[in-house]
């Protein structure tokens, strides 16, 4: 039977801490392997490191656990975020922000499967949108948005902009609001754009 939240907290703070940690490690390892899905085999050698890093965070933050959910749910949440954030960083470790931002301009080739008229419409919309980005956004917002458009995850962009994921999300939220207003002023609705790209 799984220990109660109080039992976990008492055990992790008391003389039986090592046994409790060993038990929690098993729970987190099992959960993380499932959480990683198809990626589990590729990063198997790192799973133990992710769990170890998560255990340190869990111990450091025990006081912030408010008991509003199961202790193991809270702990697994920390473990999943630790692992995914680390994998994203690792995947993008050797890519610079400049590389990602300049990439969209470098590849202007249209999809060869597309009929020329549709391809021309799509290119026109993207060029217009690129103008909105240049005219509406601050330098920081523009950098963050172009990096996101280049496929770089938030953690990787945040590291390179000396900020954190939460602050970057808020920066991008402000950028989206500005772009939404500009699109509305230009009578270019997101639905129309998605329609031109074969969605909606």
């Amino acid at each position, binding site marked *: 039977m*799984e220990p109660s939240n109080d039992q976990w907290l008492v055990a992790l703070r008391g003389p039986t801490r090592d046994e409790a940690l060993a038990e929690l490690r098993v*729970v987190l390892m*099992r*959960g*993380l392997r*499932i*959480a*990683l*899905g198809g990626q589990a085999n590729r990063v198997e050698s790192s799973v133990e490191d992710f769990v170890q890093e998560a255990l340190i965070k869990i111990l450091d933050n025990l006081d912030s656990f408010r008991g*509003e*959910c*199961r202790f*193991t*749910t*809270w702990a*697994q*949440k920390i473990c*999943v*975020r630790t692992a*995914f*954030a680390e994998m*994203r960083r690792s995947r993008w470790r050797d890519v610079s922000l400049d590389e990602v931002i300049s990439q*969209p*301009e470098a*590849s*202007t080739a249209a*999809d060869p499967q597309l009929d020329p008229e549709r391809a021309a419409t*799509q*290119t026109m919309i*993207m*060029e217009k*949108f*690129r103008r909105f980005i240049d005219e509406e956004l601050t330098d920081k917002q523009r950098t963050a*948005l172009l990096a*996101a*458009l*280049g*496929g770089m*995850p*938030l*953690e990787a962009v945040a590291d390179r902009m000396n900020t954190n*994921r*939460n*602050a970057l*999300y*808020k920066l991008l*939220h402000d950028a*989206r*609001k500005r*772009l*939404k207003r500009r*699109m509305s002023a230009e009578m270019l609705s*997101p*639905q129309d*754009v*998605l329609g031109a*790209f074969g*969605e909606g």
Partner: protein
Amino acid sequence: MFDRDIFKALIGEIADTREVEIGCDECFEQLDRFVEMKLSGLNAAQAMPLVQEHVEICGECREEFEALLAALRSTGER
């Protein structure tokens, strides 16, 4: 100019953009309760709409939410 799929995703996010949104930290703070509600068959989206909206827009938080849900669903550790 842009990767079409990522561009379409961004346009979808712009369509869903609201004046007030929570950030990744607030989402993370509430994600455990959100996931437990989902696992219990309760309407988590209705009970915690700001978390629902955030995971719809933020790809990173959505990926972590889905992974956590899968882990807890499978291990029964809840």
